[in-house]
């Protein structure tokens, strides 16, 4: 294998790269998002400066079903997103993500710094209830429930599509081979080519169970705000660096 071939590889292993080059198209991506209010001091600790967490103390607990994802396959994801601001601009910070498929874990961590770990999330319609569960290391750590297509979301699919264009960001950390930080950045991206196929709201309930390696319950639930359920096609492109901790430290 020549240096030119090596530099054109999208990912490891060279013998069969885990993920191809982006962008990545998702078809029939189904979201279930339960918004809740948490402790303001704990929220501040979970958000890396210079991001500032939202003043309402809101957290989004998400399940996402991805049956058709180019390069990645068929998988499900669950985790926590914290609405923040960066230089005054609204931005969603992904704090924790759990999924059941290796290529999007590796690509997510290595390209965009999505904080992904392997676990078993699930979304299902159980009789009248849209139900999300998350199992980590054999234990249930999250269980959310919503009414099924209970009420069309205000503004319909257009408003939901507009909301999905909001800038999202991650804290990307990749160590050097000596353990020192090689990449330590806030990384931003925006979904493109969004077509929302349906969008609903409903009352919701959420249970988070303390677990050291999947600490979703570290941002405890003070009050449930509500649930949102929507289905969309969209494209996840590459992104941009918002803030570089290594360069910032170097002055």
């Amino acid at each position: 294998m020549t240096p030119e071939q090596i530099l054109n590889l999208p990912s490891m292993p060279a013998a069969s790269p885990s993920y191809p080059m982006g962008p990545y198209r998702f078809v029939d991506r189904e979201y279930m998002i339960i918004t809740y209010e948490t402790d303001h001091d704990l929220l501040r600790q979970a958000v890396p400066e210079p991001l500032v967490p939202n003043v309402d103390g809101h957290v989004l607990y998400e399940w996402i079903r991805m049956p058709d994802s180019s390069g990645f396959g068929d998988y499900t994801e669950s985790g926590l997103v914290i609405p923040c601001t960066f230089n005054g601009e609204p931005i969603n910070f992904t704090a924790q993500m759990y999924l059941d498929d290796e290529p999007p874990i590796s690509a997510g961590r290595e390209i965009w710094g999505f904080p992904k770990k392997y676990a078993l999330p699930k979304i299902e319609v159980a009789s009248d209830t849209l139900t999300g569960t998350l199992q980590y290391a054999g234990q249930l750590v999250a269980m959310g429930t919503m009414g099924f297509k209970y009420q069309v979301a205000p503004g319909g699919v257009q408003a939901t599509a507009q909301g999905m264009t909001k800038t999202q960001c991650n804290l990307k950390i990749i160590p050097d081979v000596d353990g020192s930080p090689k990449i330590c950045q806030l990384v931003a991206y925006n979904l493109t080519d969004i077509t929302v196929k349906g969008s609903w709201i409903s009352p919701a309930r959420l249970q988070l169970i303390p677990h050291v390696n999947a600490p979703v319950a570290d941002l405890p639930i003070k009050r449930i705000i509500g649930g949102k359920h929507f289905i969309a096609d969209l494209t996840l492109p590459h992104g941009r660096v918002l803030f570089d901790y290594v360069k910032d430290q170097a002055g």
Partner: protein
Amino acid sequence: MKKADVLALPSMPLQSPTFPRGPYRFSNRQYMILSYKSDVKAMREALPEPLELVGDTVSVQWLDLPDGEGFGAYSAVAQIIPCTFRGEECNFVSQMYVDNTPPLAGGREIWGYPMKNGKASLHVNGDTLIGTLEYAKQQVATGSMVYKHDTFTRDHSVDLHLDRTQITLKLIPDINGKPAIAQLVGINFTDIAVKGAWAGRARLELTPAVNCPLSDLPVYETVGGLQIVTDMTLPYGRVLHDYLAH
């Protein structure tokens, strides 16, 4: 979280880093190493320049890792191609499959171990040491070896090569999709304490699978097996060659 605390994190996510800082001590690490003759042209194509191929024999290794500091309990399969780097005999780690996130993410992100998620198993069944690997629900590798046939009859301490430099090809993209890291990394295990080693007859079957292509180095003839039980420490590595600097 303060910026200085962010820089001190060992890994993502901020709230529960996937892996802690190294080095990483492994206790009762068990190997089954099955060596086989393969296609020399395919072996050469699988090696990144400037590594050079040695011989016509590669190995598929099963690892049972019941106690890995920071990583937990898991199993792995690796495909190893012997090579030289600047004249030194080394082992290029070409493919690796594990069933546990911390070593998978830490392996890729620190050293560039070419790890994907596969279900490896190494166990004794009756009279046979058996290794299997499932990828995406299909069994793609089956290895078998006689169980401790040469106890007391041979000293294997010279054949083990556990201290030989391992080489990985570390590739990490930048946020724009271009390569941010493209390096050959050298790794040397330390504090190796071998508790037992046995050689013996072995067989190996590799099944073609596109996302787990062990059989791209086909089995022409199984040379033999080596079972090892050891304690050893995985330290950080060093950059041997930087493709972006050349």
